């Protein structure tokens, strides 16, 4: 991160420190992320088939209730204090799925409850997920705008 210029002394220490730093078990972490992330998606698939069989949803429209249901599961797991343990094990496996998005909103909401519902819960709910919404919306705006303009000008 630190792109600042470092003094030779600092550079030297950085090298020394890196020798002692515990290496992140990247391969193991990736495997765990794969298994847990895959399982969450598998559950999501089961939920969407559930909505297709028993409710009036098609392959295309089942996505919405599936996402909502997964976030509901996420709320329960977060509330009972399980999701953070899954997260420590799975890393991105539980952070990348929509349940991780739900977890980031819900955990912030629960955490700041002691500051009241307006300033605490309301004010902090999106403190982690806010950047996801910002960059999602802005990049979607840019992408959609460019594509629409290109279509209008007949390039596409």
């Amino acid at each position, binding site marked *: *991160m*630190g*792109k*600042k210029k*470092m*003094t030779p*002394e*600092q*550079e030297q*220490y*950085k090298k*020394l*420190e890196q*020798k*002692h*730093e*515990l*290496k*992140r*078990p990247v391969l193991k*972490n990736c495997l765990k992320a794969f298994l847990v992330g895959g399982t969450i998606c598998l559950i999501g698939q089961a939920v969407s088939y559930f909505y297709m069989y028993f409710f009036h949803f098609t392959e295309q429209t089942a996505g919405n209730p599936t996402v909502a249901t997964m976030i509901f599961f996420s709320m329960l797991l*977060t*509330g009972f*204090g399980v*999701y*953070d343990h*899954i*997260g*420590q094990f*799975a*890393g*991105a496996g*539980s*952070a990348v799925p929509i349940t*991780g998005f739900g*977890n*980031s909103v*819900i*955990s*912030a909401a*629960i*955490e*700041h409850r*002691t500051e009241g519902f307006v300033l605490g819960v309301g004010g902090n709910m999106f403190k*982690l997920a806010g950047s996801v919404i910002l960059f999602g919306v802005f990049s979607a705006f840019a992408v959609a705008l460019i594509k629409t303009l290109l279509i209008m000008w007949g390039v596409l």
Partner: protein
Amino acid sequence: MLKGKQSWVFHNSPVIEASAAAGGPFEAKGKVAKDFDILHDDLWMGQDSYEKAHTLLLEEAISTAVKKAGLTRQDMQFMLAGDLINQITPSSFAARTLGIPYFGLFGACSTSMEGLALASFIINYGGARKVVTGASSHNAAVEKQFRYPTEYGGQKPPTAQWTVTGAGAAVLTDCKEKQGKLVTKSATIGKVIDMGLSDPFNMGGAMAPAAADTIVAHFKDLQVEPSYYDLIVTGDLGKIGQSATVELLQKEGLEMDTKSFKDCGLMIYQDDQPVQSGGSGAGCSATVLYGHLLNEMKKGKYKRILVVATGALLSPLSFQQKESIPCIAHAVSIEVHP
């Protein structure tokens, strides 16, 4: 009296009359649980916020230490305390309840030794006859401020450290009867050192140079050898910080024996507790010293120890603004008076 560049020698040997440690549920499962005076089985401790629980921990540690010294809080002339929360409110709120004239300190995780050094100084020069000092931290309150919500499923890397839920306090007096009692002999005040590291999930690595600097300064100022101490214990360097410090000291010509060079962050928890690199937080060195280590000294296991508490002086804001982490370390030596 000032000795060397940055050290004090306390000729009047302020006495550590009594000390106490309070901890949370996670510490109750730790390696030194039996040395805690009070252990809570719930992080909330019957309060309605973690910050209040944090305040309660310090109140309890101080009250217990005062009681163990056979005194009342009205006998205390000053209280020196600090913690990691914004504007050190838990310590100040505890001071409000206790009603002792109060100095609020901030030295991040080095606060425990900053307090002990200053308290010793005040006693040594007759600035007071009875002083209480302490430091505390609360895992959930600190995580909330510095990192993510505790329920958030973010993965902590192996370099991360676990903030201790606990408070430690000690009562210092100018008691004339010193024989066999624990006294503070000297203190070395560290300078702020920044080696450019900026990963908040690797505090130990960032703090190691500060610890090494203070340790080197201590031996230079006091002109003693490391072997003078039975134990040199650092605050909360954790696995990475400790091994980096050993190497840094080696370069300065100070060989550290692994038996007599320990770290509170590595002493407090069991090996199988999920704390990654070890414990940290202002309560880490405070509980291990004022609980476990002083007990061991009373039992006669150690005669002279040097405690080097280390602190990372960052804030969530400074980290987000891509500032590196400035660090500090203060050392205090404690001996059994002959």
